[in-house]
């Protein structure tokens, strides 16, 4: 499974490229629409081609991501997978209660995080040391909140609540509590 920062990198490139193009198109339009010349009606063929393009784009985006972002399929069908490890975490009064044993995961293992809220709606996210996000989910009281994840690289991760639950939620950080190790080598 690719690391989520590879996906973010691809998305950044794609969206930046799109922004530059659309800003240039609008600048060109603003220049041309005021330039001397004759007003012409846009041919319906161009309009319908544009509609077709948007339709293909809108639908294909999700098909492409479903087939290229590995956790999409893993997430939607997680009930059909058997996790290699399960960690049960509870949250109450703006505090995570973690398993008593340290959460150590082998590279390429599928790990299920099962997070239960006893009071408010919280979030559950795993973050790298540079503060970038590995993944997140919502933690809703009275419901099952579980996420299946496959780690592809060794590393140490911090848990942070990713949903606002009042001003105290800012401090819901458990530093360096998930460790991913490569059983065939040393953890980086």
């Amino acid at each position: 499974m690719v690391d989520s920062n590879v996906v973010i990198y691809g998305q950044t490139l794609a969206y930046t490229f799109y922004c530059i193009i659309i800003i240039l198109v609008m600048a060109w339009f603003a220049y041309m629409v005021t330039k001397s010349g004759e007003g012409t009606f846009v041919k319906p063929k161009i309009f319908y081609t544009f509609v077709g393009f948007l339709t293909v784009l809108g639908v294909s985006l999700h098909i492409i991501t479903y087939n290229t972002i590995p956790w999409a399929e893993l997430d939607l069908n997680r009930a059909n997978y058997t996790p290699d490890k399960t960690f049960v975490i509870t949250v109450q009064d703006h505090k995570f209660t973690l398993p008593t044993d340290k959460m150590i995961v082998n590279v390429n293992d599928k790990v299920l995080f099962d997070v239960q809220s006893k009071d408010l709606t919280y979030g559950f996210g795993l973050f790298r040391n540079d503060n970038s996000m590995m993944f997140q989910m919502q933690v809703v009281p009275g419901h099952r909140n579980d996420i299946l994840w496959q780690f592809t690289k060794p590393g140490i991760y911090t848990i942070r609540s990713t949903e606002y639950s009042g001003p105290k939620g800012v401090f819901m950080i458990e530093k360096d509590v998930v460790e991913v190790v490569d059983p065939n080598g040393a953890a980086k």
Partner: protein
Amino acid sequence: MSFIKTLINGEEGLFKGDTLTQMQKLALRFVVVGLVFYAIVVVEGMIMRVFEVQAISLFSQEQFFAIMTAHPLVGIFGSTYLIVFGAFLFLVPFLMKKPLWSIKMANWTLVFVTVGTFTFWLAGFLTHYAPLYTLYWPLPADFNQFSVWGGTFFILGIALVMVGTALFIFNTFKTIMYTPEGWEKQPAGALFASAIGISGFKNLFRKEKKDHLVSLPVAAIARGTVDMAFNTAIILFTGVLILIYMLGSLMGFDLKTTAIDALLYKNWFWWGLDLIADGLVLIFVAGTWYLLATLITGKKLFMENIARTALLVELVVSWTVWSHHLLSDQAQPGILKVLSGEMVTALELITQGLAFFITLATLWSARPLKMTNPLKFLLGGLLGFALAVPAGIMQADVGLNRILHNTQWVIGPHVHVAVLVGLTMTLYSAIYFLFPILTNGAKWYSEKLVKIHFWCHLIGGIGMGAFMGMAGLNGMLRRSLYLNGEFNTYMVLAALSGTLLLIGFLAFFFNIVMSVGVKGAIDIFLPAKIKGKNLLPE
């Protein structure tokens, strides 16, 4: 004319309050109050931008989140709703070629929305009631964190806004359907059907097409207003529910918050909120683009029938799109995530894309055009949505949402670019267009200030969204604080962009004050000397 004289009497003394009709004054009052609330939103936004860089001691963290709670609500209801209401209460009678049904009701709308907005803002300011606009259950009823009295007044303020909104909805539909005294009887049912799109839908299956009884912009206003009506009902219901818990607490009863299912509440809340965010905003904006494009060019709208159909599709889409807010809720059924969250949401790319193309094609048909202020801001508004809608479509994806949800990406390139650049620049375009009409030919004090307003707003809005987005892609959450300056580079750049927005607004505000003069601004709020329901002086 000296500076002081201009400040008092307006540019060349052209704006004379006593020449305004009741309807002109009504529209101007809405716009002026809406702009005052916008000023509050800009200042609050800057406070938050600075606080994201450095937690200044002037404000506590509780105050910061109270500001964050009030900020979008003052922006939506106090500013955008009022400016839109003012414009539409003038435009619907103008386009329907008949008087507004009730000027008195319109004035009450202004009173309710203004007092309501001020009430919830003040309640948040004084008591730090801060469950945010998302109100995820049971947070709004968590009285260990928040003052029950503060919350009660906060919810009452929102309820007042909703009452004002309900009056606007009633007045709008009544104006479309009623027969003015002494006029030939108008077909109320057929007008209603045309306005909300039933007759247009039937036309798709008829051999002989019937003419549309209402113009396209009125159809857009009516269809957006349908969403507004549903949303008003939902917010009122939600407010009553929260009030029950608050009153229970005040009377000493501890009502069990578990009686309400948090996920069901979340679905209910987002269904209602998307009637604004993915419904009436997009429908009103598309309608305003069409109106402005035809007024600026004097030409017929390109592909008008398709535009009408797209507005109807957008209305239906807005009822079925909410699940994209719940892609990270693991208990949300997968079918809802894929169908509502991904597929229906993707339709917005098509409907907004069509509106974008149709508006540009209409402008193109009339080239060469003069780069007037309304055209300039209209193009800015179009660019804003062209940037923000694809950003939203990307996050409404099961895979991408896992790493984007609740990050600054959502609130930066999507929400703030859509609202600040897309929506607000469209509203500014309408204001610049309507200004000479509503003021009987008053002149802008300075064209240079208009240019400053335009460029500062455009660059500031896009810049702020971009830097927030970069922070989000690097993991920075929204609705949180980073006390060790983890994302300070992006936040400083976002704050500088926010400063540009502030400068742009100050340029606009100063320009408008100097154009109408202090005397004229006060006169707007005095009773009109010209009685009757005429839109413009005879």
